[in-house]
């Protein structure tokens, strides 16, 4: 028998202003994500065990997420397309399935 979790409710957004804002933010996010993929080999080698935030197509690394976010916000306060990734300390095969 499948376990029951809290219900997730889906709603489509139709407001044109909301959609325009979402599209603009998504484009900034996509640029930052593309930067990480383009520099993946270097980032994954140099920053093991660190939290890295990509903002303004630049990398900000620190030991904690709060520090990494603060560095990124100081350099690119306008970038709402920034995101964070934790780079595991060691190369391991992940089995997620949480």
């Amino acid at each position, binding site marked *: 028998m499948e376990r029951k979790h809290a219900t997730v409710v889906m709603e489509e957004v139709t407001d044109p202003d909301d959609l325009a804002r979402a599209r603009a933010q998504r484009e900034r996010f996509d640029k930052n994500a593309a930067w990480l993929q383009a520099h993946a080999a270097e980032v994954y080698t140099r920053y093991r065990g660190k*939290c890295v935030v990509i903002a303004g197509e630049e990398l900000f690394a620190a030991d904690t997420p709060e520090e990494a976010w603060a560095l990124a916000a100081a350099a690119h306060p306008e970038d709402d397309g920034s995101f964070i990734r934790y780079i595991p*300390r060691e190369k391991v095969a992940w089995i997620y399935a949480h």
Partner: protein
Amino acid sequence: MRINGEWLLFDDGVMRPVIRREILTGGGSWQPAEFLVDTGADRTVFSAATLSKLGLQSIVPQEGISGLGGLADSVVVDTQIRLTRETESTVVFHGQFAAVTKVEALDVSVLGRDLTGLFAVIVDQPSDVVCLVGQQHQYTIAPR
């Protein structure tokens, strides 16, 4: 409805299926995040690194989150996840989602079956396809 993702290179040199979109913060803004499409995960789980930016009030979970490493410390947050359709319009998913509280527990957030269960999920690495398919869309499997 079709929500597209992509295969991304991770730190261990493995390509994994990911959908990139946003989570609603406690301040009302949208925070970008990457989600691993994990067909084995019972529920959606935010990474601790992402949780740190959300500013959401956390609820004590009714049940724990367990992976291969055993039980992980976690909380539950009430928020929305925004995904983008093939038409460039957006869809929001409102619910209570789990989050781990230790950074090392998850390198990236996980999209689980509480959300993906609303769709047909395609994670096809040979064809370079990651997508959620639902409502007016369908898929066909045919011989080449």
